[in-house]
């Protein structure tokens, strides 16, 4: 026999709010520490390459700028492959100049695999064609 102790709980549940939220219309707030998409600031970057060395999944590669930007950016800069990234935040922690930060953006799913790679500067035609 089931005890009647569950009855008040049942009545309470009838009038309480659900645990879930209606996602596209409302969402639970994301805390500041959340490790989401990277934000990269090329002006702060000193091309030390520490982020590429600490990355456990080797998602970061130091690449040269394309011809169009070569004059203004002569060094190598991090190219981030979000497909390989495990969002551990070590690149953010090791960066001495705060050039890489992890933002709160969680909407990273995409249908186009070329979107997965984040170039340090806007993509040029040369890079798109390979």
């Amino acid at each position, binding site marked *: 026999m*089931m*005890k009647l*102790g*569950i009855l008040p*709980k049942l009545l309470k549940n009838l009038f309480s709010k659900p*645990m*879930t939220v209606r996602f596209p219309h409302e969402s*639970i707030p*994301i*805390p*500041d*520490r*959340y*490790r989401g998409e990277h934000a990269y600031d090329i002006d702060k970057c000193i091309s030390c390459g*520490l982020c590429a*060395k*600490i990355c*456990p999944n080797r998602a970061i590669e130091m690449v040269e700028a394309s011809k169009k930007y070569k004059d203004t950016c002569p060094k190598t800069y991090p190219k981030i492959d979000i497909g390989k990234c*495990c*969002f*551990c*935040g*070590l690149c953010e*922690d*090791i960066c001495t100049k705060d050039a890489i930060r*992890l933002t709160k953006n969680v909407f990273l799913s995409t249908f186009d695999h070329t979107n997965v790679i984040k170039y340090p500067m806007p993509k040029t035609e040369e890079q798109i064609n390979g």
Partner: protein
Amino acid sequence: MIEEMKSAPKGSEYDLYFGPAHPGSGNFGVKLKIDGEKVVSARADPGYLHRGFEKLMEYRTPIQNAVLSDRICILEPLNWNLIHAEAVDELMDIDVPERAKYLRVIMAELSRIQSHIIWYGVFSKGIGFDTGFKMAFGYRDYILDLFELITGGRVYPAGYICPGGVRRDFPKNAKEKILKVIDKINDMIKLEELENPSMDARAKGVGILKVEDAIRLGATGPVLRGSGMNTDVRKDEPYEIYDRLDFEVPIRKEGDAYARYWIGIEEMKESIKIVKQALENLPMGNVIVSNFKKPKLNVKIPEGEVYIRNEVARGEAAVYMVSDGGSNPYRCKIRGPDFLHMIPVLEYLLKGVQIADVPAIYWSLNICPADMDR
């Protein structure tokens, strides 16, 4: 081929595959030989989730390994973080700050509660009590919200507990939020404790593991405690601050699935006690030793070897780490508690039971294929 035909079941015997595509079995299978409704023999079929952590760790520095150690067990990443961090601390002779020790214990215990909630959820699902499953996963999300606030990730803390302390201090409002969540978990425990006819009918007297057999087959943690042995690494060989905390080790004599289910509930209560005590006595100060504040590339681990054992939610886990003086460990052996629960113990318990009892036994062992295959 001829061998296979010779060993093929005869007459009314047939093979039944429980997993690896079974909903809820995890990436793990059991091949059952069935005669009518009775299981004649069971053979575990592991290996679907093997990722080779022991080899991967030989190519990474301690801080990178801390990130990797999350993934050993998906259901309780923080506990595995803790073991790895303790092993490196011991090898490098690091004096972990007092506040870091408290934060480590709080996070590890929250992780344990969360893991036990999943256990309750999948066990309920296994015996056909779907309300329990939905309730458990709903309440678990409150703890995941806490992890998101503190570590920045819902499931994977990304090496929050790292060699030298913890990667970040608690945010300002963390203490109040933890206490609020604990109140909610207390509600959940009250719901779990309600008299439940389906639990009584499906779990009582099922899968009885006697204490001698449990020791012989290598069971640890809640499975061994459910059989009546008083053992807990947190009491036997206290690490971090467990020797200063007041908590009990729940024990049940019956050794059946129902006893193990109750051990889970009682352990959650003890963990809540631990979290409350640690929050009360939380000292101020640093959370990480000064030379580990920024992740470093060329950290040299001094030569030596160390064996660290901890109590995780599923039993006794251990890390054996050898260093030859380089920046990566020379060898890192991981002992997952579920390796023994899911192969010898499960095969032993499934012999001679009814098919309907298989899920109840399977999920009562607090299984996690991830930490078994590693």
